[in-house]
């Protein structure tokens, strides 16, 4: 063993126990009788003191629950796939390793090489994930990105064994732009906060608007504060009272001011983006395509609602099982198999999903939701594509060229 800093108490194994329980329940499966199932190892890697899960700083004194660990989604997938795994003669062994807050990635990469898991689910900060990819031998093991949305990351890591389950930012803004255009809300006012993510989101939406034929009437930058001298930037009513628009696109990824916007804007117009109608990978209130069943199972096992990150971890495990159906059981085999169009999956969103061969982005429907209901699933009717309407969302093959140095 290399000198890896780990928190052994936070290491959890699931999988074997559930499989034994199933065998006991069914009696026997003649297909595998007498043959020990092949273990397929999945490493779920997280980082202690990850800011993504830190307590939310309550500047206004209101408590907001921090983001829960998506590991529960991976655990549910192990349970959900046990019957399939049994039929395939495999067991899924899910290993949760939490790196210490200052634990080196290189050491972990060595441990991964030694352990040779079939896949790694990276619940890591973006820099850690990129470092891990660079530290591992090329195509030795698939690494599932369940968190990071930046399109630039898809570009920078192209050609590597990273598979992005969480939708890219452009997939989300494309979904919202389709909605606005389908409603004929073609004049859009963009209101954005100062954070880099706010600016990236606003830029992504501008590209999406252009792609689908909406027009940005203006882009306004919001500044948090009460300074009367800056009221043209701090006052939402003033910011939104200019030229007319059909809909307001809001980019406030930190949730600093966006909550107020729907009722502080000057005109009676709908809000989309980070408030009002939002685009996500998954919602616990989806009522179609088998989603309620997935959500019920998740709520029963995790005692909370399923987030889109839980869902992404759930998909990652299912993708490994899907690869096993195609006889891929080792890291290199799974990494190679996932890039093939033949590996298609049902992910309870109504359309057959798969990884795009060009950028390894998971090709999937996008949920358009408010705080308490799913309004639509994109791609929306009428947005056509020569291969699959799913590829109207995000970066399509002709727009993508892989020139990154990362293997």
């Amino acid at each position, binding site marked *: 063993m290399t000198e890896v800093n780990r928190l052994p108490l936070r290491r959890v194994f699931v999988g074997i126990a559930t499989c034994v329980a*199933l065998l006991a*329940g*069914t*009696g*026997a*499966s*003649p*297909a595998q009788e007498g043959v020990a199932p092949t273990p397929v190892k999945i490493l779920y890697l997280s980082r202690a003191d990850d800011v993504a899960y830190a307590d939310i700083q309550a500047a206004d004194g209101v408590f907001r629950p921090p983001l829960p660990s998506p590991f529960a989604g991976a655990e549910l997938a192990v349970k*959900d*796939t046990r*019957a*399939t795994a*049994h*039929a*395939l003669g495999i067991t899924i062994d899910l290993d949760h390793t939490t790196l210490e807050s200052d634990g080196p990635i290189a050491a972990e990469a060595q441990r991964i090489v030694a352990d040779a898991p079939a896949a790694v689910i990276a619940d890591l900060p973006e820099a850690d994930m990129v470092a891990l990819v660079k530290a591992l031998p090329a195509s030795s093991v698939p690494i599932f990105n369940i968190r990071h949305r930046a399109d630039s990351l898809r570009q920078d890591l192209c050609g590597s064994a990273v598979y992005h389950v969480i939708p890219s930012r452009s997939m989300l803004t494309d979904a919202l732009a389709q909605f606005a255009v389908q409603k004929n809300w073609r004049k859009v006012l963009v209101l954005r906060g100062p954070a880099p993510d706010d600016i990236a989101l606003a830029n992504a939406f501008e590209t999406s608007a252009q792609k689908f034929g909406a027009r940005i009437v203006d882009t306004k930058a919001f500044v948090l504060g009460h300074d009367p001298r800056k009221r043209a930037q701090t006052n939402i009513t003033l910011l939104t009272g200019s030229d007319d628009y059909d809909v307001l696109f809001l980019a406030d990824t930190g949730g600093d001011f966006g909550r107020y916007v729907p009722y502080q804007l000057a005109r009676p117009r709908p809000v989309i983006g980070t408030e009002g109608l939002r685009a996500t990978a998954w919602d616990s209130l989806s009522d179609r395509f*088998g989603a309620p*069943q*997935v959500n*019920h*199972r998740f709520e029963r096992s995790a005692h909370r609602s399923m987030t889109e990150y839980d869902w992404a971890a759930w998909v990652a495990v299912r993708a490994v099982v899907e690869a096993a*159906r195609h006889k891929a059981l080792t890291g290199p085999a799974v990494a190679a198999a996932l890039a093939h169009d033949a590996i*298609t*999956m*049902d992910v*309870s969103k*109504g*359309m*057959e999903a798969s990884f795009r061969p060009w950028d390894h982005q998971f090709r999937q429907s996008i949920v358009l939701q408010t705080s308490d209901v799913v309004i639509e699933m994109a791609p929306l009717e009428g947005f056509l594509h020569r291969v*699959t*309407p*799913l590829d109207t969302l995000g970066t399509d093959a002709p727009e993508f060229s892989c020139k990154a140095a990362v293997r």
Partner: protein
Amino acid sequence: MYAIAAMLGLIDAGPAQAAGTGLAFVSNERSSEIFVLDQTDSVVSSFKSCGRPRGMAFTPDHIRLIVACGGDNTIALYDVASHKLMKRFRDVPDPETFALHPNGHDLYISNEDDAEATVLNIESGEVTGHYPVGDEPEGVLATSDGRFVFVTSEAADLVQVIDVAAKTVVKEIITASRPRRLAATPDGKQVWVSDEIAGIVEIIDVATQTVVGRVEFAPPGLRHDEITPVDIVITRDGARAYVALGRANHVAVVDVATRKATDYILVGKRPWGLRLNRDESKLYVANGLSDDIAIVDTKSGKLSKAVPVGVTPYAIVVDD
């Protein structure tokens, strides 16, 4: 999770006279109603049922209508003539569909939320078996010789085969994405399974319990991902199959021998449930997203009528 069924609410409405009336019963999952259509395809009555009724079947004597109600974890038996609730088995977790074994009393039920198939004796009210299956079990089929029960698991891409005498799962058959419903050919040699997300029907050879073929669909002007097959019915002569294509809004007509789709009939929005009447002159189609039943004249292969029913019609059974 162990389900215990209890008999409750016994009401005696006297002998029923409904057998062979030609009435069609339609379960509506969102409005919890059962609609009744007569032979002229008009709605003649409707009644409130248990919550979220989905799968339905008649008892062999056609005196009772068995309804699976996922909303309140119930299997309910209604009198076919009076529509009165005759028996209710509670605590059957989230039943979606079921198959009545040829012995006439064992109901094999898929418990959608529990990854289980349970066996309920509808005469004694006893639950006599539990089979852990894959997640989101849906379609259940008992072979006509009573030897096997097939169960699909939507989320596990699996068809499991229960040996009835041995009381065990004897085979797990991996399918394409999201297997939903099952239908047997009249000779009992094949079981067809619809794979909703893969957009195909796979054919299982009953003797070897393996997938031996598939049926693909290409309705004109529609894309692969708009083809989401669900219910399947096969004619008594074993020549033709009808497959409801869900999002494609069509029903496919399939030549069973060649496994080729020969026609596509536009029926309504998101057809799932199918049923033929006894002389097979009419095909009833439940359109879940247009809240109507399409009646297809099977001779001409054309829609003859669309009848508005409750909200989200699911299954149809015909009392003839």
